[in-house]
């Protein structure tokens, strides 16, 4: 077991940290206020290699793997969770499924542009009636000659409007609940594709969350990932990576909360004492620091398993469940330490508090994570101590 980062990993972390502090931080404050999507940031992230971290070099990526990706996501999440979410989805979902399930032609056509952020990728699963229950999705996808015809809507799609492509999950067989789902690479420029409503969110305000509308949207048959009916398998295969990504950026949020809390508490005086000298503050700091370290280690472990191609649904779910909970608690405590000013938009903790909240909802709610974990744990016991 190795707890120290390698020289290469430290260098990657440093580039991500420097970029987050110097380039992203100044833009993030403004972007989160205005809701303007920081496109230039993604271009630079592409130039630096952060948009193709799990893509092999032959497709224009840097092929560093999930562990290096989580190092980067934590640094980005520390400064701007909105940006980190988009980077996570792009790398661990979009790039991943094209690489794993796309035809050679699809990989060649899309991965080089994705890996350099020429285009951003978004990932469209959720529908009004299909949230945690993915298999309930309905978006109609009917084969018509050399094309599929897509009709329906997707909701809550992060950066769906800014993306060049969306990975869209549709129903190719209405009768087979799980086996009737297929995945397509849909270019935003395809006829019949349009952007519907833009959500006004509580947090993650520097990234857009939109509705995608498909009206007789024509997708070339070759843009299907895997084969017809492979959609559920593809979605499940990408899940762990997606969860690890969200977990990593949540550790970043938590770390930012701790940083802010300590720096503030050192400065703030009440009753003639720095509030960091109060035991009530110190206990919060101890708790935050310990929880963050625990969450980070779970994230690291899950990422290492993913890089070793070891299935890790339990570990990824644990990492996400803990990291997002820790981010919420840390943001809550950091805001409490700030007192009144923490409740104003002048201070970063206010944004951290709002951004952290989404973590327990997207990429599988905390309830779903518990379900995944408990199922696996019970199964393990079943294998060790069978019930006849």
């Amino acid at each position, binding site marked *: 077991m190795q707890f120290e980062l390698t020289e290469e990993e430290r260098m990657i972390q440093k580039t991500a940290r420097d970029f987050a502090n110097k380039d992203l931080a100044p833009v993030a404050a403004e972007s989160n206020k205005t809701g303007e999507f920081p496109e230039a940031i993604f271009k630079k992230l592409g130039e630096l290699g952060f948009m193709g971290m799990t893509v092999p070099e032959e497709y224009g990526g840097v092929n560093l793997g999930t562990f290096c990706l989580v190092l980067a996501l934590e640094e980005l999440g520390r400064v701007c969770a909105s940006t980190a979410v988009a980077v996570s989805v792009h790398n661990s979902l979009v790039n991943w499924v094209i690489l794993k399930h796309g035809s050679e032609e699809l990989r060649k056509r899309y991965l080089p542009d994705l890996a350099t952020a020429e285009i951003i990728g978004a990932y469209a699963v959720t529908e009004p009636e299909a949230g945690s229950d993915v298999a309930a999705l309905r978006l109609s996808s009917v084969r018509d000659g050399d094309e599929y015809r897509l009709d329906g809507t997707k909701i809550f799609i992060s950066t769906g409007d800014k993306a060049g492509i969306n990975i869209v999950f549709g129903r190719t067989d209405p009768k087979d609940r799980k086996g009737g789902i297929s995945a397509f690479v849909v270019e935003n420029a395809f006829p019949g594709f349009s952007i519907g409503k833009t959500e006004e969110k509580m947090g993650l305000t520097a990234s857009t969350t939109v509705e995608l509308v498909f009206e007789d949207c024509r997708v070339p048959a070759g843009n299907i990932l895997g084969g017809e009916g492979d959609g559920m398998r593809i979605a499940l295969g990408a899940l762990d990576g997606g969860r690890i990504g969200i977990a990593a950026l949540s550790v970043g949020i938590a770390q930012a909360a701790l940083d802010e809390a300590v720096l503030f508490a050192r400065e703030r005086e009440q009753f003639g004492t720095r509030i960091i000298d109060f035991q009530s503050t110190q206990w919060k700091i101890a708790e935050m620091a310990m929880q963050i370290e625990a969450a980070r280690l779970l994230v690291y472990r899950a990422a290492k398993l993913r890089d070793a191609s070891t299935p890790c649904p339990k570990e990824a779910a644990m990492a996400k469940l803990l990291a997002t909970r820790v981010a919420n608690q840390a943001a809550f405590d950091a805001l409490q330490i700030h007192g009144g*000013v923490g409740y104003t938009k002048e201070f970063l903790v206010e944004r951290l508090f709002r951004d952290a909240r989404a973590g327990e909802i997207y990429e599988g709610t905390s309830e779903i994570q518990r379900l995944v974990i408990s199922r696996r744990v019970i199964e393990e016991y079943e294998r060790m101590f069978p019930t006849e």
Partner: protein
Amino acid sequence: MANDVLVFGEMRGGELKKVTKELINTARTITEAGGGAIDALLIGEGAAGAAETIKDYGLRRITVTEDEPVKNYSTEGYAKVLTDIVQDHKPSYILVGATAMGRDLAPRTAARVNGVMFSDCIDVRMEDGICVVRRPVYSGKLYIELAREGERPTFISIRPNNIPPAEATGDGTEIVAHSSGVEADMIRALVKEIIPLSGGRPDLTEADVIVSGGRAMKDSSNFKILEELADLLGAAVGASRAAVDAGYAEHAIQVGQTGKIVNPKLYIACGISGAIQHLAGMRTSKVIVAINKDPNAPVFEKAHYGIVGDLFEIVPLLTEEIKKIM
């Protein structure tokens, strides 16, 4: 060699720099304890004239060189003259200002005469006949004290404004003209022109000095008095969030949590109460000066120096006072 000291009198634009008298005072510290005489060397256009201004400072000899090839500064030209004088007069210590010129010239010359150099010293004293210098290291986070090993020409560059200037002692000095011996082709890196800083003030985050105004500025036009002070100090102008929100200043110059985080050597807060938002953006400034009417304003808790009163009276006076010493 004894304890003779050579003071390098830096000239810019035909005038002797203020630091020269501080160097003379330092030289006296050395010679008073260890014996020896003080000489000075002035190179550049107007050197002979400038020498007159330090004639009565108890020097043994002032050497002046102002022929064509060394009229303006060049590392190689000046290093040759300084080398010749050091080899000729054999001073034990050579004092220069820790200025752009001194920091360029001294190490080069030290290498040429097989000497040693102590850079950016803030204090020089004699201890049992040994010259001990103090200098900041780690960007001023610590000091070290050093002395030389063995006898060799010792170059010490002294930071301006650290040592009080010497007073005249009233006895005249021999002024000796020296031919530089510099040929134009010895100078491989040549200064073509000097470009003065344009009116533009330095960037807030890079400025060494910041003059900042708060809500008490009352109007954007009143920032003029801060700008005058800032220009005198080569400083940037900042503003508190309160001043920005009130429309007295652009957000681009806001200092604080949601503005620029700054870390200058000197931060002058004028009419800023010191909301925690503001303090978070400037608390690491090396020296903070607060000017405020309200003696209970929180800014005084973070400031190193404070003055209670009306900024509209104090700031112009401050500008005048600082003008006098520059």
